[in-house]
């Protein structure tokens, strides 16, 4: 508003005359501006307090803790880079990184592929689209919950639903979550199953692609596959990129599912020891909060690193059409 007032100043006034004339009005504008700012900050205050106490403060605190030996019960003791040095030789940490990378690099592409495939089907104009969309979206809302993780453990248990179905066909099933060869697989399936969120975004993206491109291509005799790879995929790359970045970051932070399915151990034999789960074990199980804080910072750097790589690489494959 104050800018509007200033604009209403007679445009023709000379610079020399304008300076003294302007002063009182700016002062008045300033105080009003200040008052309005105060009101605005007042309304923003809860958020700022939250940001400070719940976000920035703890981030800085964890940075400090990462350079200390902190047992949670006692006081933190400064140890410099020791926690970070220990990471180099911590085999369980390396294993947890391997498990997490496997999980991210297998489940995210599968999840996105499934999301895109279903979005394409729904985009054909299925009747009751809203209903299907909601049904497929449901797992995304529930997937990270404790209830679903418990359900998963039951379904994939030695006497679970999966094995009962297999037994019906005369197949002797495994204890899927209790066998280290398959345990991570069940968690990957769980993540793939939560394809609803990227699917809804894909669906919106597909709707943005002008129909005339397809019509023109059809007229030219392009096959459905050709149309998919030459029209749909290029025009959808920004959406794919967005989903990829988001889902990767989510996958790196997966905790609840592994915690519940393995009973907090990351077992059997560390086969589901996700990075975040190991971090939790160090911090709250071993009273090693200093090390856990250092691990949190390493995770931040890893996720940050992959996100940067994603953005750099996006220059070569994401097509913005402008």
């Amino acid at each position: 508003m104050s800018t509007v007032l200033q604009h209403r100043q007679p445009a023709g006034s000379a610079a020399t005359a304008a300076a003294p004339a302007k002063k009182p009005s700016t002062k008045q504008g300033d105080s009003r501006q200040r008052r309005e700012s105060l009101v605005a900050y007042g309304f923003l205050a809860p958020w700022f307090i939250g940001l400070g106490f719940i976000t920035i403060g703890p981030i800085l605190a964890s940075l400090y803790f990462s350079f200390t030996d902190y047992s949670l019960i006692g006081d933190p003791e400064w140890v410099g880079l020791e926690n970070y040095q220990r990471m180099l030789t911590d085999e369980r940490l390396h294993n947890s990184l391997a498990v997490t990378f496997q999980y991210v690099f297998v489940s995210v592409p599968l999840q996105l592929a499934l999301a895109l495939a279903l979005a394409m089907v729904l985009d054909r104009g299925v009747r009751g689209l809203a209903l299907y969309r909601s049904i497929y979206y449901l797992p995304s809302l529930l997937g990270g919950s404790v209830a679903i993780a418990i359900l998963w453990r039951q379904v994939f248990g030695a006497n679970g639903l999966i094995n009962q179905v297999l037994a019906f066909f005369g197949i002797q099933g495994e204890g899927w979550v209790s066998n280290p060869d398959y345990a991570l697989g069940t968690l990957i399936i769980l993540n793939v199953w939560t394809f609803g969120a990227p699917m809804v975004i894909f669906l919106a993206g597909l709707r943005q692609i002008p129909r005339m491109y397809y019509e023109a291509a059809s007229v030219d005799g392009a096959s459905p596959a050709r149309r998919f790879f030459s029209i749909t995929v290029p025009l959808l790359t920004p959406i794919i990129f967005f989903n990829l970045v988001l889902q990767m970051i989510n996958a790196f932070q997966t905790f609840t599912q592994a915690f519940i399915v393995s009973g907090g151990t990351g077992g059997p034999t560390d086969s589901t020891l996700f990075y975040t789960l190991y971090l939790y074990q160090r911090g709250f199980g071993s009273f090693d909060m200093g090390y856990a804080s250092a691990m949190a910072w390493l995770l931040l750097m890893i996720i940050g690193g992959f996100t940067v790589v994603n953005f750099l690489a996006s220059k070569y494959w994401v097509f913005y059409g402008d």
Partner: protein
Amino acid sequence: MRAEPGSGRPLRNSSVLKLSAAIAAVTMAATACGSGGGDDGNVELRFSWWGADDRHSTTQQVIDRFEAQNPGITITPDYTDWGSYWDKLATGTAANDAPDIITQEERYLREYADRGALLDLNELDIDMSSIDELVVDSGDLDGNRYGIATGVNAYAILADPQAFEEAGVEMPDDSTWTWDDYIQIANEISEKSDNEIFGTQSMGYNESGFAIFARQNGESLYNEDGSLGFSEATLEKWFDYSVQLQDGGGQPSAAENVEIEAGGPDQSVISTNKGAMAHFWSNQLGVISATSGRDVQLLRYPGETEFERTGMYFKPAMYYSVSAGTDHPEEAAKFVDFLLNDNEAAELILADRGLPANVNVRAAVLDALPEADARTAVFLADIEGGIVDGNPPPPIGAGEVVEIIKRITDDVHFGNITPAEAAKRFMSEVEQATG
């Protein structure tokens, strides 16, 4: 830049923040609230314990009786299962919000005591004159008494005679049986019953079993100074027993072991009538007998007469401790005294926290004990003569050892590592955890 939203938000979501949020919540709790009474002179105390539903309802009744006797003191219960108990206690203590009366366990006692989180109970008005001499000083560290034993326990074999009978195998004579006998009997049960009944449940998920084996060999799990007190060869032999049971079919498959272990006592092979033997603490006999619906018996550990000496020992089942941060140490002491010495409390708790450590109380409740717990009492009395000594208090970090031995035993079961590799790994991991 249409995809830009992806760049800012996700970073804010990173798990550093989740962790930090937890820390922040804890910090705020620390500044905002201290436990304590209201202005009306009513004292509020919080009492924490771990366990299953059964213990929760019994303990609530105990609290009700205490409150009836002591108007003006309110006790708030604070309970979870074993696994989350220690996470919760650690965060609570870090936030200066520890419960006033804390149930402790030997693996964690030093962790808290050494960091000044517990009061010296000798300074408080608690009558300890009737506590069993075998365990009365078991909560002492550096001359201070940080915990008083709730009751006495022994790690032993639970055996289901009916399962033995169904498999057509004789119950062993537990006063003389060797480890080879144990393995052979277990394998035989599985074989004779066509794997309908497993001989035994894996013994590898609790280091207490190995502690007995080490003692039988004249060694110990930990030395007085907290260092490892056993040789690599002994531990290798221990893991090799597991391999013999695994290969001989005496225990469930590696994957089944994982599931059974995750299910807790309720899912033990004895509780589900799928096995003949299992390794548990003697105070768990009651609950496992009840779930199994059978007259489950306690047997001495194998090998008690095989090597240098006997290995079984009495362990304080739990400790009652008082938080250093309590605002009302006197009232907290009153409650601990009630839990330990009052018959009204004992007749409810019975043998749930081990056979009562107070010998007078023990005598008083002996007749009231349910059948299974009465068997425990007889068993403990039977083995008492053969027990050489107790175990030194475990070092800081001992709470991690259960998880370590579970993980390594799984690796052995799945055949990922040999017993020799397992022994090496266990020793290096435990040394790191407790060092």
